[in-house]
């Protein structure tokens, strides 16, 4: 009987481990400091995770499709700089669609290279990380970008506004998460993404247009990046050229923490949201405990390794690797 319970517990941990860990963390932090579960603290954490979160939603599509996207950080810098620059030149109502169009074009280019030309996604997006950074610097001339009239623009609503008491970034994050979750989980397109990532050759033989599906995942990623850039630009109304630098790997960490396999074919939008929130709440909880911000790096490291390790250990049925 006792054996059965431990087995059941092991199964639960294996299947919903990340959720269990999340709950354990929340309880531990809440016991350590009651302020942790105050509404305004929780809302603050989600709000500051929104940018990372929105980007992670798009990358989830790419990763489930069996590819990587390392260019999202530098692409986010690009969107932010472009929308801030165009804001003063053509006004916010034109700047936003123009920025989305340009970011989607970049995403489409990557999608073309990875999907149709079948180039290795890691190197393509690594190259694009560098290329888009150069593009951003060329656009801005290397200078910081600022909106001239910071008080009189309605543009700040995306990053600073709130509707019925809920901050707009949270609303956008939640809305996007729900929509993308439905697309991935309930539509034929979503099933094709899983099929292509799970076994590309089999997907091709069953008539799924693999190239087009991969291409689409990068468009989704670019759309999310543009949204994140919009929130970022609107929140600070000014930006450096390197605002998104290094975010690509944090985004990937959140997606992996959520349980998506880098081999493709597994993961969900909901799990990614959990991954993002875990990163956000750990950071916040450690800060509230009075620890310096960089302690979270070490904690995140340990959690990522443990999460992925336990996940594959459960799948192969033994803890230690069979590598000789």
């Amino acid at each position, binding site marked *: 009987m006792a054996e059965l319970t431990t087995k059941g517990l092991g199964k639960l941990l294996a299947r919903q481990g990340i959720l269990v860990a999340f709950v354990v963390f929340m309880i531990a932090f809440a016991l350590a400091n009651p302020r942790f579960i105050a509404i305004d603290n929780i809302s603050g954490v989600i709000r500051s995770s929104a940018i990372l979160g929105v980007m992670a939603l798009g990358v989830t599509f790419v990763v489930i499709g069996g590819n990587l996207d390392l260019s999202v950080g530098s692409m986010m810098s690009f969107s932010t700089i472009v929308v801030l620059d165009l804001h003063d030149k053509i006004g916010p109502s034109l700047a936003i669609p123009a920025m989305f169009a340009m970011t989607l074009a970049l995403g489409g280019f990557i999608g073309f290279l990875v999907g149709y030309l079948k180039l290795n996604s890691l190197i393509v997006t690594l190259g694009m990380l560098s290329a888009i950074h*150069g593009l951003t610097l060329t656009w801005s001339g290397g200078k910081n970008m600022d909106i001239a009239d910071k008080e009189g623009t309605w543009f700040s609503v995306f990053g600073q506004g709130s509707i019925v008491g809920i901050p707009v970034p949270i609303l956008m994050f939640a809305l996007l998460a729900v929509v993308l979750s439905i697309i991935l989980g309930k539509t034929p397109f979503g099933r094709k993404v899983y099929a292509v990532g799970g076994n590309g050759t089999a997907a091709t033989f069953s008539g799924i247009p693999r190239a087009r599906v991969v291409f689409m995942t990068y468009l989704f990623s670019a759309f999310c990046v543009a949204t994140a850039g919009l929130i970022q630009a609107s929140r600070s109304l000014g930006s450096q050229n390197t605002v998104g630098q290094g975010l690509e790997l944090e985004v990937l960490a959140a997606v*992996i923490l959520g349980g998506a396999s880098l081999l493709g074919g597994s993961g969900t939008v909901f799990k990614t949201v959990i991954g993002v929130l875990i990163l956000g709440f750990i950071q916040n909880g450690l800060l509230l405990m009075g620890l310096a911000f960089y302690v979270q790096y070490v904690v995140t490291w340990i959690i990522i390794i443990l999460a992925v390790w336990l996940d594959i250990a459960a799948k192969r049925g033994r803890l230690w690797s069979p590598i000789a």
Partner: protein
Amino acid sequence: MNSQFRVNLIKQGGIWAFIVVELIFFSVAGELLAVTDKAFMDFDNMLLLLKQSAPIGIIALGMTIIMINGNIDLSVGAIFALSAIVLLDSMTWPFMAALGDWAIPLAWGFALLTGVVLGAVNGFIVWKTGVDAFIVTLGSMLGFRGLVFMYNGEQPTSHLNWTLVDFAEAQFLGLHTATWFLLVAGLLLWLLMTRTVHGRNAYAIGNNREAAVNAGIRVGPHFLWNFMLIGFLAALSAVVFYSESGSVNPNDGMLYELWAITAVVLGGTKLTGGYGSIVSTLGGVIAIQLLRKGLGHIGADTQTVNLVIGLILITVLFLDRQLNRKGKEELKT
């Protein structure tokens, strides 16, 4: 057979041909645009170029072996920074001060040991847990960076030792100290990869892991050794660089992993493992540095360097695939 030979020649000679093209292009363009009176192929300029290639170059050498294995290491930038801090900080420890100049080799030893230990942590996790190296080192990239910050907060760590600076700035037979380190490390690793069992096993494992296991190669310890090796090289790169500069910021070394990978891929090493060469990686490193200097020479903005390198990387990937495809088609017939 003959065309297969030609394909191989193009693949291995490609990076050197590219370097020659770069040299000619920047020399001619520099003359025509007349931005500066100095010739691009100035001897001192080339020596400096080799010296500046050294920090990324030494790391890229290690990355080549890791990638031939079919693994990847994203944590080298953080290892670089932590080793640099240990190097500079250890020279201020009380018992070290009493040793005089003998503190220098000891400080180097501490820094290199740091690199080896951090590499061993990565290798051990890859071996024992079976988690993909990409994820393991992505995690430790964050974790090691956290350790860097924990060591000295957000303050820069500085210590100038003039004997050390003199050594780092010295020139022997015309080449700078850093260049010598790059060349000697390159030579030793080339010997390792082409003349030893370890090197042959590295290719075998990268090519087909299952088969390598069946052939009796102990893959786990092999990975461990290679991660220790790249940790050592990242630390060596830090030792060479910070002996001269004497001050390290906690953010130093960020994105070095990406530059190193770019150089390795330009050199033609396969991400999927089993194929690549140390010499070609040296070519890749020099090509990138040449591009940076060359674009500056013809008066292009420094920002265009990123754009050009990114596009070249993608082009190389595309051409490489076309070449491979051709090779395969001819094998079929």
